[in-house]
């Protein structure tokens, strides 16, 4: 079809492991664009800035521009700026990428990097708090520690302190059989200590779509959401009234989708895709013909 836009999810859909593209994926994306489709990359990963993503996508053969990439580092900064209208600093449990995206929209942060525990219990409970901090933001952080958990909790006991998380993914893709805890684990730790729930920015929350739509004038009726996870990608599509396409090169299976469909539970129907393909490469013949 002519016109319209397509949104594609990055992890597991276009990239079959951390460092290589799903065979045929770059051609599909590039052909879609040549055919006049708008293509956006939407990912819950918070460890890269938009620029870092474009660099990575380019190396793998994807024709991508910075303003087409929506990761949670960028979207969290946008959320704080445009929705929360935050004035004040952020206590950030997250990556340098998150710090960069925040500074790019004029938000200052404190907390990124290693933070080891020193002193005694009374020192930790009385850890000095920056009075300018008005929000706690939690993303993926390999430097996560008890001290960071403690600081976040102390800030969150203050009235009026906002609480934002990038996403709730439980695990990162397995590396050599190892399980790497996802942002969802870190967020749950902070939520439990603080006895408060965070507002999450990433899929399936509709904010990432709102971000795309507000910048590019997108018509949901003319959108297709392509992803590999039912609980994030497909759910996002359903939440925003988009058509959804599941690719089977990643996390979720057809059996998973059928289980949701047969469950009879209204909430789970949002995780049933409209269509599915084995791989995004199956779109090639339609684009080349």
């Amino acid at each position, binding site marked *: 079809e002519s016109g319209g836009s397509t949104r594609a999810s990055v992890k597991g859909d276009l990239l079959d492991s951390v460092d290589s593209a799903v065979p045929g994926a770059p051609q599909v994306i590039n052909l879609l664009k040549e055919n006049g489709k708008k293509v956006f990359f939407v990912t819950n990963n918070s460890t890269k800035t938009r620029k870092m993503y474009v660099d990575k996508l380019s190396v793998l053969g994807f024709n991508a521009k910075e303003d087409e990439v929506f990761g949670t580092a960028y979207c969290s900064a946008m959320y704080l700026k445009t929705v929360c209208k935050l004035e004040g600093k952020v206590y950030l449990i997250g990556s340098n990428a998150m710090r960069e995206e925040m500074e790019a929209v004029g938000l200052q942060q404190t907390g990124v990097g290693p933070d080891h525990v020193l002193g005694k219990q009374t020192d930790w409970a009385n850890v000095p708090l920056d009075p300018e901090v008005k929000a706690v933001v939690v993303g993926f952080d390999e430097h996560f520690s008890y001290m960071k*958990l403690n600081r976040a*909790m102390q800030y969150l006991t203050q009235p009026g302190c906002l609480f934002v998380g990038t996403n709730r993914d439980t695990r990162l893709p397995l*590396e050599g059989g*190892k399980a*790497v*805890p996802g942002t969802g*684990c870190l967020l749950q*730790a902070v939520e439990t*200590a603080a006895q408060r729930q965070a507002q999450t920015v990433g899929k399936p929350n509709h904010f990432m779509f709102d971000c795309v739509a507000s910048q590019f004038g997108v018509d949901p009726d003319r959108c297709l959401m392509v992803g590999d996870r039912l609980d994030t990608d497909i759910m996002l599509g359903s939440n925003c009234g988009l058509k959804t396409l599941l690719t089977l090169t990643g996390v979720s299976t057809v059996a998973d989708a059928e289980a949701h469909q047969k469950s009879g539970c209204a909430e789970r129907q949002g995780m049933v895709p409209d269509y599915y393909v084995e791989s995004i490469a199956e779109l090639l013949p339609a684009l080349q013909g």
Partner: protein
Amino acid sequence: MAGAFKGCQKIRGPQIRNLLDAKDFILLDCDGVIWHGEKAITGAAKVVNSLIRHGKNVVFVTNNCTRPRENYVHKFCRLGFTDVILEQIFSSSYCSALYLRDVVKIRGQVFVMGCDGLRRELDEAGIPCVEEADDPDATIYDCALAPDVKAVLVGHDDKMTFLKLAKASCYLRDPDCLFLATDNDPWHPLSSGRILPGSGSLIAALEVSSGRKATVIGKPSRFMFECISSQFSGVDPAQCLMIGDRLETDMLFGSNCGLDTMLTLTGVSQIEKAQEYRNSELTTNHSLVPDYVVDTIADFLPAFEELGEPSN
């Protein structure tokens, strides 16, 4: 206490005396009940010493897993509780060691996320623990995993790092590896009124990454009562009174074990919360409602004064 659900009964002198006449075993939580940090609650030492001298079996049941029992004995002494001995102390770390040794009869190593106090209790019980490697640059992608890890035990761990969470998550992928928690308290109060993240927050992180639920050793689980009962060659719940300050741990523990419960208001929980649970439509919340309430453990003192000190 079957029958009409009342709960939250505030009691004083003569009523406390009657209650004590009916109970042989007094189970006491520590933080917020008999002391705040390094400061004993006024009158608490006198109450405890009096209970012991009046022939009651007094045991201390605490979820605090940061120190070994020997250290607790010293603390009791320091704060004026002079009659307390090691065998009266039941901490979640001590009971975790008992659980691994006597219930699980663990063969293989335990991966521990916790303080030195917890490790010492495990060492004393002869439980092999994975040694912490000290490589500061190690990441989950290149670190070695210990062989033969048959349990992950999580407690209050101020040295918690992402790497430890990742290692624990890896070990928990084996369904034969147990997932144990000393306790599930989300936060702990300090004497200043400030709080610190508790074991519960680390457990929550691992439950998300592993998709598994931890087996909790400490209150409100029954296991610590089973340890007590086993040490005293059988304890009749009807003869027991559990005194604590936290509804979600102490009162629920008492309820789970069939004990009468008493809330003291010198700690975490407020009377309003107890009343909220009592008025709740969810009957499960009724288990968090104390049978009795006192402002402070010192409210026991008049009960003893009327009896007079017994001759030793």
